[in-house]
């Protein structure tokens, strides 16, 4: 596969903006109940007890933990970072006010102020956009909206902890069914210590009446975040799920190891969109979030469809490969990604498409932008198994380099075991960026605006896959990220 590489020259003026402070850098002092640092069976028992979990779930966590201690962190990814001290992490922090929240009025005013700073006032969102927000601060859900409206059509959208209490059979049936507890080092760690996340269930034939949205946020110092998300779309169901996040400035690296599992049964469709803006670290690369995430969907039924769309602009290190297991005949998997690395950010990201069913189809569109000292690696796997008669994949990955010190790498893996399989790769043939930049400037468009225009054009194929409001937000985020960190 060829990966065209484009270069955009940057002036000193643009470079000067490089040291701008992270826009969402602040932290809020909430009454936090924290567990002691470190990881052991006792800590896991504490988490499980705090959350009043059934025996089977504690057993599952312990099984994961006992496996995890036999593993070593992976080293194959194209990123470099110092060793993580897993005994120096707090695995449980509860920001919940003492009494239970039943309406927005009862939400901690300080917490609401924090949402305001993030521009995601829940009340506003409730009224204006018709988006249900399950806001997560640290590890426990504190506010869930639109529940009643969703309940009318039988959609369950709640925190993971709540799902464990209210819908244990569903959780037990699907937890670990797509990403097993022993899948990889970070997924295994997550399985042992996850504290909360989102749960979503769309019953048979239901078209979810609104976009479901979750804002994730890291808050308490030294708190590793181990979210667990599980989305199940029954036969013929449809859901569009939005995930977006920001994180406060910290001077110490923060580990984020989430697991997302999607299950789409026959004729079901899940559209999962992410705008990721974790704190990327300062100009020297200190303090950013480590984002080591396992995201996978199982298109288990005939004609099932799962789409991942991601815009990744944050994190010091991103390590994720949202994928789809195409088990059902005629099932479809899609991956659309924009990954921006600036300053000292590193990203090793791509997609895994595993074709098992007949006539399964997958599409991978990856756009990587590297600025400053950013390093961006596309790593993708297209795996066409013996059984996958007539399977098809289309992959396109393009890189855009801004400045002289950034890097882009492409590492595609292709494994075709069925000769009827059809694997296609395409690359755009954009000319070098300096010519584009000069063209824009000759027409009177100032350099910084021209860079933003070229980059947004480069990403358009992905942006158009995002829901409207999210696309606008993503475009803004990309422009802001570039303004603040090109250099």
């Amino acid at each position, binding site marked *: 596969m060829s990966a065209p590489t484009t270069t955009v020259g940057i002036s000193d003026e643009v470079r000067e903006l490089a040291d701008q402070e992270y826009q969402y850098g602040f932290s809020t002092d909430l009454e936090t109940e924290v567990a002691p640092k470190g990881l052991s069976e006792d800590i896991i028992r504490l988490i499980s007890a705090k959350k009043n979990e059934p025996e089977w779930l504690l057993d599952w966590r312990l099984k994961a933990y006992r496996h995890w201690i036999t593993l070593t962190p992976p080293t194959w990814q194209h990123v470099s970072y110092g060793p993580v001290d897993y005994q120096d992490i707090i695995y449980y922090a509860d920001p919940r006010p003492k009494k239970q929240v039943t309406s927005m009025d009862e939400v901690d005013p300080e917490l609401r102020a924090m949402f305001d700073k993030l521009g995601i006032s829940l009340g506003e969102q409730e009224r204006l956009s018709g988006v249900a927000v399950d806001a997560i601060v640290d590890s426990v859900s504190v506010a869930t909206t639109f529940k009643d409206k969703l309940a009318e059509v039988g959609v369950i959208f709640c925190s993971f902890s709540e799902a464990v209490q209210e819908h244990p059979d569903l959780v037990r049936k699907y937890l670990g069914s797509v990403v097993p507890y022993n899948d990889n080092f970070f997924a295994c760690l997550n399985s042992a210590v996850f504290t909360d996340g989102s749960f979503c269930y769309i019953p048979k034939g239901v078209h979810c009446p609104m976009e479901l949205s979750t804002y994730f946020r890291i808050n308490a110092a030294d708190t590793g975040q181990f979210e667990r998300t599980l989305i199940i779309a029954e036969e013929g169901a449809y859901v569009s799920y939005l995930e977006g996040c920001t994180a406060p400035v910290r001077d110490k690296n923060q580990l984020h190891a989430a697991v997302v599992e999607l299950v789409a049964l026959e004729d079901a469709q899940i559209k999962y969109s992410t705008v990721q803006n974790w704190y990327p670290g300062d100009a020297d690369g200190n303090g950013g979030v480590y984002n080591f995430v396992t995201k996978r969907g199982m298109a288990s039924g005939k004609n099932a469809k799962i789409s991942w769309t991601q815009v990744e602009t944050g994190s010091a290190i991103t390590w994720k490969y949202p994928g789809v297991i195409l088990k059902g005949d005629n099932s479809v998997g899609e991956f659309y990604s924009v990954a921006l690395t600036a300053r000292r950010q590193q990203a090793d990201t791509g997609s895994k498409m595993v074709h098992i069913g007949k006539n399964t189809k997958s599409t991978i569109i990856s756009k990587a932008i590297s600025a400053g000292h950013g390093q961006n690696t596309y790593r993708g796997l297209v795996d066409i198994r013996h059984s996958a008669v007539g399977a098809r994949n289309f992959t396109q990955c393009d890189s855009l380099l801004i400045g002289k010190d950034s890097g882009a790498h492409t590492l595609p893996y292709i494994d075709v075991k069925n000769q009827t399989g059809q694997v296609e790769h395409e690359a755009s043939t954009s000319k070098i960026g300096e010519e584009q930049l000069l063209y824009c400037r000759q027409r*009177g468009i100032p*350099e910084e605006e021209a860079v933003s225009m070229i980059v947004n054009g480069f990403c358009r194929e992905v942006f158009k896959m995002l829901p409207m409001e999210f696309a606008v937000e993503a475009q803004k985020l990309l422009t802001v990220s570039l303004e603040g960190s090109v250099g």
Partner: protein
Amino acid sequence: MLKIKELHASIENKEILRGVNLDLKAGEVHAIMGPNGSGKSTLASVLIGRDGYDVSGSVTYEGQDLLALSPEERAAAGVFLAFQHPVEIPGVGNMYFMRTALNSLRRQRGQEELDAVDFLALAQERMKLVEMDQTFMSRSVNEGFSGGEKKRNEILQMAILEPKLAILDETDSGLDIDALRVVASGVNALRSEGRTMLVITHHQRLLDYIVPDFVHVMAAGQIVHSGDKDLALELEANGYAGLTPRSARVGASV
């Protein structure tokens, strides 16, 4: 309006322009002809401020030092280049691009920006000049355009941005005779008292359609002959090698 004096330019220690002198008055159309490698396109590049050249000498544009300005400032001052090879900008709509460009110019000139509706009306009117239809505007800038479409798109931008100094770099290259007619009639429609044009070409053919006031011949980085439109015909008949001393007016004091 444009005075070029002893202009030298080199790239990677190779001298391309070796003392160019030219004087263009408002409303005049000057053609620069010359064989490949004579420095014609480099002259255009230096005038618009392309990076990478070591430049000496002076270029005075409407009384100001053109060489001291950034490319976007030159554009705002009214300098326009119809590129020889217009670049593709994937994902950026042609209409959006042109509106952004016009509004950037207007902003830099302290004029009010045009909204989408007013811009559309302007664009539709100017598109007639180069026989372009609406579908061009919804495509990405130059992406998948044929050679002729790219050149027409350049002239359309010229018509919309209304420069005071328009430099046309090999605008005829790669055009068949029909496309050439369309492009040339677009350019002719834009000739006016307040607009100076510098037409770079190595074919006399273009000058049958865009008839210049003056013709200059460039060779080895210098203007070696200057004359009126008949010079182009003479070149066509005898080639660059066959120039007679009679027509030579070295120094270009036209």
